[in-house]
């Protein structure tokens, strides 16, 4: 038997070409479920948001949620897909206890949307990801296995099922195989999911939160030698964060190349990604693949979206995130690097709103990316949840621009705003925070400082201007920081010249 060793990632991608594919499931944020009137709210007690339809009780029948069909079509349009003029739901038959009817109402060879694309930016380059299909289906319930060590079904003494999630509308977005991305394959995968999430968020059809499972991603990976046929693919599940998407692809590339180097073959299978180890382990083998016995769902009539309605939906699409980013980057005069930082901080909307409220882009960005990001990090909060609004930031920057506040005072004003004391102007007034610009009062403070520090004053008089710092400090202390340091310095120098 040959020994399998793991090559380095660099060696793996130097030798093999990776082909990736992504299947993403997005839970739609419709008010009600896909085929019944139950609410879709997250976090309720188990089995409290159920009815005969989503429990699959004998005799119950589905009625398709039109809002979900509309949302799916909008996703398809945003992904540049062709929208079917006529299509049907299909039953996907397999037994699983979290699926009340033991078939999933899904779509098979007649998806709502087909043949689209999504451009993503990786390393300053644009990669076009081809979209194979976007279709609509229902989510399953959730199983919990108790009594075992692993939380998996093996070894569990009891299995519990919560059907609250059963029947929530789910959109599946499948890419065509993505090849030719070389060593960047993991980053391309991540960039795709990131961009897709942004697109769906911009449409307002889902909250696309990976940690709550409203966006779930399966990653297919295969390797081949250059010029040869594509290899056998594996499907990695349990990829629960953007970072995991990248790590899962990377780990599969390394694992598969080790096997291929050793002359072994890749088994077509489902694998599970583990956040802690960054590795994948085998799940059920697809070689004994379930025959899903798809056939058109006889309980639902075909969908035939009116082309005029579809074109109205197309016209009403919001500006897509990538277009918006490009527009804002230009408007704000940012480098790609600076723009990337703004994106990573989740500050685009906030800065845009702050600018809209009257602030200059540079000022708006400075506050959100600097002081406010720092505070959000400390508090382990999202920037937007910090408790200061874009309008307040714009007002704050206005006070700075007007010379009423300096940065130090502005930070104290932020303290007040975050403490709920009101808008920046009100906080500054209440706390008595303002730059002292009345030179009469300042002159008195300067004279007092000179009188109290005759030795230092002599030094300054003799031309050691650096010594003025002591006097500036004294004046600032006297005025509780409300003087403009530059003005103070000029005053001192003119008195002692």
């Amino acid at each position, binding site marked *: 038997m040959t020994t399998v060793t793991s090559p380095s990632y660099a060696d793996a991608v130097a030798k093999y070409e990776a082909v990736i594919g992504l299947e993403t499931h997005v839970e739609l944020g419709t008010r009600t479920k896909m085929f019944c009137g139950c609410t879709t709210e997250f976090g309720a007690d188990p089995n409290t948001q159920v009815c*005969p339809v989503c*429990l*699959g*009780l*004998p*005799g*119950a*029948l*589905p*009625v*398709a949620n039109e809002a979900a069909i509309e949302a799916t079509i909008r996703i398809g349009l945003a992904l540049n897909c062709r929208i079917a003029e006529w299509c049907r739901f299909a*039953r996907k*038959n397999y*037994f699983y*206890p979290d699926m*009340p*009817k*033991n*078939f999933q109402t899904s779509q098979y060879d007649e998806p709502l949307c087909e043949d689209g694309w999504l451009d993503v930016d990786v390393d300053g380059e644009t990669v076009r990801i081809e979209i194979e299909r976007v279709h609509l289906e229902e989510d399953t319930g959730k199983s919990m296995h108790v009594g075992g060590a692993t939380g998996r*079904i093996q070894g569990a*003494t009891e*299995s519990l*099922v919560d059907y609250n999630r059963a029947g929530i509308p789910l959109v599946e977005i499948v890419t065509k195989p993505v090849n030719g991305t070389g060593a960047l394959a993991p980053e391309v995968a991540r960039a795709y999911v990131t961009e897709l999430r942004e697109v769906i968020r911009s449409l307002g059809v889902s909250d696309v939160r990976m940690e709550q499972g409203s966006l779930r991603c399966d990653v297919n990976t295969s390797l081949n030698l250059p010029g040869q046929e594509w290899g056998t693919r594996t499907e990695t599940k349990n990829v629960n964060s953007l970072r995991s998407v990248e790590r899962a692809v990377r780990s599969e590339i390394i694992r598969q190349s080790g096997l291929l180097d050793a002359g072994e073959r890749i088994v077509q299978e489902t694998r599970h990604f583990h956040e802690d180890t960054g590795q994948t382990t085998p799940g059920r083998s697809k070689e004994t693949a379930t*025959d899903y*016995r*798809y*056939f058109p769902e*006889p*309980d*639902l*009539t075909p969908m035939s979206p009116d082309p005029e309605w579809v074109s109205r939906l197309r016209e009403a699409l919001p500006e897509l995130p990538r277009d918006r980013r490009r527009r804002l980057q230009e408007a704000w005069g940012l480098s790609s690097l600076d723009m990337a930082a703004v994106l990573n901080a989740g500050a685009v909307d906030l800065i845009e709103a702050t600018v809209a409220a009257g602030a200059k882009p540079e000022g708006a960005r400075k506050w959100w990316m600097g002081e406010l990001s720092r505070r959000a990090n400390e508090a382990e909060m999202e920037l937007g949840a910090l408790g200061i609004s874009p309008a307040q930031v714009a007002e704050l920057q206005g006070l700075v621009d007007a010379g009423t506040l300096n940065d130090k005072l502005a930070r104290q004003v932020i303290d007040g705003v975050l403490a709920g004391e009101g808008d920046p102007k009100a906080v500054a007034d209440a706390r008595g925070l303002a730059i002292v610009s009345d030179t009469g009062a300042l002159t008195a403070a300067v004279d007092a400082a000179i009188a109290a520090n005759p030795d230092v004053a002599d030094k300054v008089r003799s031309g050691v201007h650096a010594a003025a710092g002591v006097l500036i400090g004294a004046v600032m202390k006297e005025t509780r920081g409300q003087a403009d340091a530059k003005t103070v310095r000029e005053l001192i120098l003119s008195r002692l010249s």
Partner: protein
Amino acid sequence: MIIHKTAAELAEAIAAGELTAEAVTRAFLDRIEAVDGRVHAFLHVDAEGALATARQVDADRAAGRALGPLAGVPVAVKDIVVTKGLPTTAASKILEGWIPPYDATIVARLKAAGMPILGKTNLDEFAMGSSTEYSAFGVTRNPWDLNRIPGGSGGGSAAAVAARMAPLAIGTDTGGSIRQPGAVTGTVGGKPTYGGTSRYGLIAFSSSLDTPGPVARTMLDAALLHEVIAGHDPRDSTSIPQPVPPVSAAARQGAEGDLTGVRLGMVREFGGDGAEPAVLAAYQAGVEALVKLGAEIVEVSCPHFEYALPAYYLIAPSECSSNLARFDSVRYGLRVGDDGSRSLEEVMSATREAGFGPEVKRRIILGTYALSSGYVDEYYGQAQKVRTLITRDFEAAFAKVDALISPTTPFAAFEFGARTSDPYQMYLADLYTIPSNLSGGPAVSVPVGLADGLPAGLQVMAPTMRDDVAYRVGAALESTQEPRLADQVPDVADKEL
């Protein structure tokens, strides 16, 4: 005597205050008590519930509140239609003891109409069969000859009406399960247009074929019940959003006995091969009676009808294999082998093995095969094409004639066990009824006389949503019989009088 009155007569007497709904309901409950021990039409009798409804009707009448056209007239419901708080088994062990938490739409409409529900009637398990011999809870006997089958799957509903245990009953027709029992018990059976009556709450056998409808002793009674249960239901996507065809007016018109100008087609392909001579003779007498009423009889060709039976036995089992997947012991019904030593899959298997009878298993296996990868196009797909061709045959025929006529079933009630050893011999019972299920068009079976002492039926098939045409022709034929078969009291009744 109350039990010999038609539903229309009872409704009139109740409305006029000549009879109370309670007295009427009690009369039928007494009759059930007296004869059902030998017929076994009912799986469950709800005397208390029925009397409560009856008393409410009497109170409403006393208070001067408006009553529906069948208020106070009791009805029996086939035990495949779910009834809130009343056991619903589909005559299967797998659902023994299940109490539905909701009402089927048609049951809700019966209740809203003030119709006391006497109980739930026997059927072939999950409506799969033509003799009611496949009930898990024992056979139902034909009131005309207790050694013979009452037809199926709705043998319980037909026998209950024939034996005067109920003036009306609800049946469901997937391949003839209302009409064929009607023919062999001397009762009227109506299969409405598919989508004309709601399937919500009808435990699905074959979703694209199942149609609930009325069982009665006269065409007018059937029409009145049809009008109570029919009409668009937003809970059933396949329900037709159109007004209910005026069937009771058509039945009254037909009863006047004039069919001048009505063209009726006899299907050449239903030439009578394999049909019993006595059944054919009764049918011929019926045709002659129609001619005497002024109908013009022409021969039409429906070349694809000969493929109806094989197509049906691919489509119905395919859909049933998926529809019955939900009976898995997880959420309701029977659970076998859950002793802690078996896996979930083993418990599911053991439950389905123990819970389903032989005919149900046969069809699940047949359907699973017909939908399996590699065969689905050849079997399910081809069957759907045949279905389209049969629909076109009907359309072509209805361009020439107002309605089609045929014997309802090739043979009269047979003795128990005569056809259970060869499923195909059993399937032939539905030879003439299946085409209307495949096209979705309406059809009625009306008693046409006796064949060697056993009832025979004539079937009238009409265009989609022209149920009224079938009722008119059926009622006209009924008017020629003196005495009406409906007024002749079968064997079991004689003995009890």
